[in-house]
């Protein structure tokens, strides 16, 4: 009998800022990139997302979203069946048939994403050629493709892949244009509107968002484009923007008052906004954020928080909790740590913070149980089991679905972390 050999898991890696960085391999409890469709289809209101995948993909989307799809959604799955696999049916012809009927039925659709999945990747179904072919046939409907497969993408990387697929399609802005600002990453409409008002007060007039709310309103880009990432998981999108000549403004992420100020500051500096103007434009927001945060600081101050890896938002969130609410960080798990995009965030984390990149689920759960944190931020699959062991948890997915960026949402963001503790204190049963 072979003795069971547990796989190697944790390695301490090269120093990265002042943090205690570990890399881990093993079982990962994370969503795949298909999950991003749940918020992306709401953001781009005339886009349809067609997953080319298996019954598992369809089941994931209807389950993971926490909702069953009862209305007519703007996403669906073309389920590959054994006829496609056995070559009895030509998968490309089948796909064309499904897409053609879909578009005939939904004349409101202006942009169709063919979304690759694990099975479509493994059988090497070429969705980029399919998208080209169908774009020609279905004009003026544009057909693009990206991969949301679990083998290629982790949860929020699906949004990254989607936006990266949009970038080559964006109109080119004339070379001599005045500098314009592009905000990259899906934000709630209300948050976009708040930021627009602040940028306007800063005197930055030409501000666009990627993705835009409608397929026909996607921003033009070029060498005059300066962009701010609104989300920390957009590595491929940033690379594609760089290739089109746009320049990234290095900044922290707009979570919490401090992050929001740092993020706005990066734009203000790039656009030569005077200090007095900046202070005047942000003072009210900062003051309101401070008022909203104060009560939560009392509840969260000194609490010990453990993050399981989920969305890549973990590092900025941990920074916000540590610096603005006085939380003590036990471990910050993240599926992937983008050293460059998160440079300012890593700098701001308390020295010696344990950051774990990647995951070995059972080992991480052992560490969490041993540490008995006051609050554990984790996915839906882990939350109730940890609660049953007496640990308070915060579902991480809510941090994606709730507007949390900017000054006006700083208090809401803190409240998301404070609520499980408050609830535990309230319950007498």
């Amino acid at each position, binding site marked *: *009998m*072979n003795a*069971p*050999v*547990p*796989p190697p898991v944790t390695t301490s890696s090269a120093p990265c800022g002042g943090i205690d960085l570990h890399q881990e391999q*093993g*079982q*990962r*409890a*994370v969503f*795949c990139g*298909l*999950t991003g469709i749940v918020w992306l289809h709401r953001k781009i209101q005339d886009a349809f997302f067609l997953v*080319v995948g*298996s*019954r*598992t993909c*369809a089941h*994931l989307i*209807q*389950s*993971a979203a*926490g909702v*069953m*799809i*009862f209305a*007519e*959604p703007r*996403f*669906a*799955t*073309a*389920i590959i*069946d*054994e006829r*496609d*696999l056995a070559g009895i049916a030509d998968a490309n012809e*089948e796909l064309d*048939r*499904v897409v053609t*009927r*879909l578009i005939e*039925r939904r004349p*409101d659709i202006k942009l169709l994403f063919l979304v690759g999945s*694990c*099975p479509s*990747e*493994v*059988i090497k179904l070429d969705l980029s050629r399919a998208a080209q072919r169908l774009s020609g046939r279905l004009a003026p409907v544009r057909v693009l493709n990206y991969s949301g*497969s*679990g*083998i*290629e993408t982790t949860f929020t990387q699906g949004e990254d892949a989607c936006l990266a697929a949009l970038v080559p399609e964006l109109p080119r802005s004339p070379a001599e244009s005045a500098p314009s600002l592009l905000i990259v990453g899906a934000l709630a409409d209300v948050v976009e509107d708040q930021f627009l008002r602040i940028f306007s007060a800063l005197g930055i007039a030409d501000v666009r968002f990627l993705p835009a709310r409608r397929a026909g309103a996607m921003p033009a880009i070029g060498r005059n484009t300066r962009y701010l990432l609104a989300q920390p998981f957009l590595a491929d999108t940033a690379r594609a923007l760089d290739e089109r000549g746009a320049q990234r403004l290095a900044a922290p992420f707009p979570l919490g008052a401090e992050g929001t100020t740092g993020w706005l500051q990066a734009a203000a500096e790039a656009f030569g906004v005077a200090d007095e103007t900046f202070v005047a434009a942000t003072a009210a927001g900062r003051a309101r954020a401070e008022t909203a945060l104060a009560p939560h600081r009392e509840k969260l101050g000194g609490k010990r928080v453990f993050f399981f890896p989920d969305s890549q938002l973990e590092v900025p969130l941990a920074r916000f909790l540590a610096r603005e609410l006085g939380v003590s960080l036990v471990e910050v798990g993240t599926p992937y740590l983008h050293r460059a995009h998160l440079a300012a965030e890593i700098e701001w984390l308390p020295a010696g913070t344990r950051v774990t990149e990647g995951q070995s689920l*059972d080992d991480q759960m052992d560490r969490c149980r041993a540490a008995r944190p006051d609050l554990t931020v984790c996915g*839906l*699959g*882990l*939350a109730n*089991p940890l609660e049953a062991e007496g640990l308070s948890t915060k579902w991480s997915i809510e941090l994606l679905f709730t507007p949390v960026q900017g000054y006006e949402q700083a208090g809401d963001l803190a409240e998301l972390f404070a609520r499980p503790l408050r609830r535990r204190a309230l319950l007498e049963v």
Partner: protein
Amino acid sequence: MQLTLWTYEGPPHIGAMRVATAMTGLHYVLHAPQGDTYADLLFTMIERRDARPPVTYTTFRAQDLGRDTAELFKQAVSAAYARFQPQAMIVGASCTAELIQDDPGGLAKALDLPIPVIPLELPAYQKKENWGASETFYRLVRGLAGAPGPRPAREPGRRPLCNILGPTALGFRHRDDLIEIHRLLDSLGIDVNVVAPLGASPADLARLKDADFNVVLYPETARSAAEYLKKSFGQPFTQEVPLGVGATNRFIAEVAALAGIDPAPLLDGPGSRLPWYSRSVDSTYLTAKRVFVFGDATHAIGIARMAARELGFTVVGLGTYGREFAREVRAEAVLHGIEALITDDYLDVEAAIRAAAPELVLGTQMERHVAKRLGIPCAVISAPIHVQDFPARYAPQMGFEGANVLFDTLVHPLMMGLEEHLLGMFREDPEFHDSVGPSHLGGNARSASSAEAPEVAASTAPSASAAPILLDEPVVITTAPWAPEAEKELKKIPFFVRGKARSNTEKFARERRLPLITLETLYDAKAHYGR
């Protein structure tokens, strides 16, 4: 390739997880890419289980495909064995791992673990969740029940002994059905040997053969295993599923016959409240209510039968998404004088509901929403499972208490008899007009349905703004226009039968190629269909 917006069943490995999660001392190693771990939340969030499912996923990624996914699988099996020390393991692949053909069964066997390791072949591109649960349970029973052989005769004086087969994790009311059936069997004087899969360990499966017979509660998950036990150990199994009073009585008689005991004391006991409630005069208004039933085969058949025979409803639609049991559902539909609907496309089900114009829909969560769109009362009687299907209270579907629960479930969504009567009397009163709708539906039912009206129109014309994606060409039917006085008269008909009156009259006019629907047409049609 099939276009799917929503699916009644998950892939077959979800069925395997329902069995594994139901059991103790069993671990499932699933060769699956990162992302397939979403399945955990079905159990921890929908069923609110307090522990992770006993499943280890390999969560391979693209970079692993270039290396050695087989090695990754072996490591996962070894690590899971070392950590969880299960009595037995099941191993298999999800849809993506099936394509890379690593042979989980062979790889696990090569590790030579000191416990039974049972390989599962669950073809993800052909089969679905319930089949996966059934196949997994069958493989487990086959692998762990021991060598086939004759059963020793029952010792004199020992109470009859049975197994209960079928309940799983994430099962529709399985938790409470089990309590109710336990109670029934106990009052008959029958002991329960093993309940499986729910709560059973691999060691318990080795004791299955000690029982005199098997009680199969959910044929979808347990019939294959029960057939194997019958063949291997000569254990007969029950055919009757105790949904409703009649079926519960037949179930008691069947079980008593298998156990060789007298069912009379229990059959003569107090039983269910349903028969008296159904005979009570306030239930008169339930007579011939048109009901559409859709769900898994077991619940659809049982509830259709009960609705017709015990509540006096008329079953105008019956169907299932479970093709494995299509034959049984078709046979039941014949008894109701209708043709069964066998489909896993909810748009087909929606179209069938529209066409049948029922007054009550008994279905899954999807039919609940279809019914809401159509302004028809609805109750949920079957999986796919939803957090609402795990009520805190005791709410079985089976046995006498189950019949009580089902009476309430089926009757409450309908307007109470008196309320319906008053609505008819005060129809034109300003605060009591038909667009108010039944008060217990929050007053929204009618307005929801009138908001739906444009969609109804859209689905029969190819314009479609946000119309459903119907993959079949819409049938464009020209219907005669309504004369104003006929339209006005139609409005005087109570709203809950108005839709049917309208469609019947239009059908009547179409068949006779009438150019205009007049008052005369309306009443001719009424007389025609009222025969």
